[in-house]
């Protein structure tokens, strides 16, 4: 097999050529969908006495409902389910070992997201199971309500995927576990050191899980099994599908398989093609455009290839150059020495609080304000971290937001290091979101201030307060 670093070199060379030939117009992939690679796990059998025993749905004890990771808000992150939209389960799938099956429901949220949520199915209800060290191995069914969503875009609460309307997605997890509770990637790497971490079940108890939403034109999905390729229909106007197979036939370097997103619009497809050079669960999908049926990927019984198009979105939509030159205020917040040490930084180190007045409203997950730190100084603190607000913002609202990352302040570099506030509308102007992406303004580190308002000079810890 090819050295992965050689393969990476080829990918980079190809990407560089694309950038050069397309005037740096690369394929847009949404930042909030990037979290999608972190998928969770699900399954369908209770392990009792060291063996795998199928449990009938009837007579199963109920445990406490699954709680969201954080208190959710209708105006933050994915928002909350719109009342009434989480209807009956859209898709069901049997478990390889029999017994309790799996299900997926689809709903819309207050921030305009379309979400697919997967779990174990019991009497038409989704849930997670207390096995494989989930819920203390209590053997109970823990109901999963639609508002158990990740606190931010994408994210990690169970098997749930939220995306903007019109987008398509395939989520894969080659090593899903049976409980439907998320297994963290680090739990796969070594014996648990953190007492909160779970033990990874034996490979024979894991599942290969794939699900997705392929849009109204989707007809079918073709996927790998131990016995060869199979094809299943895509259901409903969302083109939903759910696959649960024994794990092991698709090798993954970690817990996570992967995901693909794109668009399927009338007459063309930018969707579903799984990784060309990697074994994935889903290998192809078929679509119907008018009277024509076609497929994308490999192994579909539909031989005719769909017309595809590369997303050619203006670079300025996701990397704007134009600036409104609005004033941005930066306050440096001194961090405790142990936080600096944990981040491999010298003491003192800081977080940056950025304050600005929002020129445009944000009313859904389709737009956002990003704060990007920029550093072009060799010896400086390089606060090269960025974050997004991921919440609704009123027009002219005064926004205060604090950096995720820590950094050191280097006086000689202060003029070369800055924070930039960007209004992001990566889907381009529309009636609902008429403004293009734009740089709101930039503030240099040399203009930073103490929490008290005095100009920051980089003096010692004794003169500063912890922020």
């Amino acid at each position, binding site marked *: *097999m090819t050295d992965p670093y050689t393969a*990476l070199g080829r*990918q980079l060379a190809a*990407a560089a050529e*694309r950038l050069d030939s397309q005037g740096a117009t690369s394929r847009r992939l949404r930042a909030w969908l990037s979290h999608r690679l972190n998928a969770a796990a699900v399954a369908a059998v209770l392990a009792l006495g060291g063996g795998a025993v199928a449990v009938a749905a009837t007579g199963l004890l109920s445990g406490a409902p699954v709680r969201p990771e954080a208190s959710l808000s209708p105006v933050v992150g994915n928002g909350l389910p719109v009342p009434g939209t989480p209807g009956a389960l859209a898709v069901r799938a049997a478990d390889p070992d029999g017994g309790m099956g799996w299900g997926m429901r689809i709903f819309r949220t207050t921030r305009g997201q379309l979400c697919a949520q997967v779990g174990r199915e019991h009497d038409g209800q989704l849930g997670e199971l207390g096995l494989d060290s989930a819920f203390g191995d209590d053997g109970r069914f823990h109901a999963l309500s639609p508002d158990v969503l990740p606190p931010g875009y994408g994210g990690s609460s169970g098997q749930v995927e939220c995306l903007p309307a019109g987008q398509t997605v395939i989520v894969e997890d080659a090593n899903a576990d049976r409980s439907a509770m998320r297994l963290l990637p680090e739990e796969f790497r070594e014996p648990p050191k953190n007492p909160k971490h779970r033990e990874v079940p034996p490979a024979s108890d894991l599942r290969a899980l794939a699900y997705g939403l392929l849009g109204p034109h989707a007809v079918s999905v073709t996927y790998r099994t131990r016995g060869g390729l199979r094809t299943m229909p895509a259901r409903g106007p969302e083109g939903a599908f759910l696959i649960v197979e024994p794990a092991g036939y698709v090798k993954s*370097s*970690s817990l996570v398989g992967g995901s693909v997103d794109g668009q399927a619009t009338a007459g063309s497809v930018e969707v579903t093609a799984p990784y060309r050079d990697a074994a994935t669960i889903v290998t192809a999908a078929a679509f119907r455009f008018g009277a024509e049926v076609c497929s994308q990927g490999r192994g579909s019984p539909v031989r005719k290839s769909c017309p595809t198009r590369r997303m050619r979105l203006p670079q300025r939509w996701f990397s704007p150059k134009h600036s409104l030159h609005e004033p941005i205020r930066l306050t440096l917040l001194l961090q405790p020495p142990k936080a600096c040490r944990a981040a*491999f930084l010298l003491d003192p180190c800081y977080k940056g609080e950025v304050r600005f007045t929002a020129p445009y409203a944000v009313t859904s997950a389709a737009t956002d304000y990003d704060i990007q730190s920029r550093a072009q100084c060799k010896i400086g603190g390089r606060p*090269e971290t960025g974050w997004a607000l991921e919440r609704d913002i009123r027009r002219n609202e005064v926004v205060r937001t604090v950096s995720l990352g820590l950094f050191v302040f280097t006086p000689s570099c202060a003029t070369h290091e800055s924070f930039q506030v960007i209004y992001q509308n990566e889907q381009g102007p529309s009636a609902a979101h008429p403004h293009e992406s734009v740089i709101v303004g930039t503030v240099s580190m040399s203009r930073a201030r103490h929490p008290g308002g005095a100009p920051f000079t980089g003096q010692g810890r004794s003169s500063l307060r912890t922020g």
Partner: protein
Amino acid sequence: MPGDPSDEELLVGGGAHGFALLYERRHPLVRGYLRRRVGSHPDLVLDLVAETFARALERRGQFDPQRGTAVGWLLGIARHLLLDAVRAGRVADASRRRLGMERIVVADEQLERIERESTSELERSLAGLPQEQREAIERRVLAEETYAAIAARVGCSEQVVRKRVSRGLATLRRKMGESA
């Protein structure tokens, strides 16, 4: 070779071919830098190397050779991606996704074997140095930072940095001589 373009020339004016050459030339260094900090997680190292170069590719227009070396710039990106990964619990992949790059999936066992085979004698010896000597050598010899810059970054005098580099190199020579 005297006629070879510098890293900075490859990055700034080398176009796609230049960037590919830069990757070929410098990815072992970035990989080693990350490997020493990440430890025995070759899949994480691969993800971090991939995102480091993807981000560098996206932002090569921002690189200014007047302000530092290309290697220092690459290692700065790698370092911040690593810190962000530690805090977020995952390796960022935004640049790779924007560039349409696919995640390279390799079995853990194979990655570990590749890492074992590619770990150079120098890296193994470097890993055995005291932390302050190792950092001084990495910054001075690998990242080509100036003594003044390292001193400012590490928080000691230039003289101390010079001593650390000198002692570290002497130890390395001795260790590698012993193993030869």
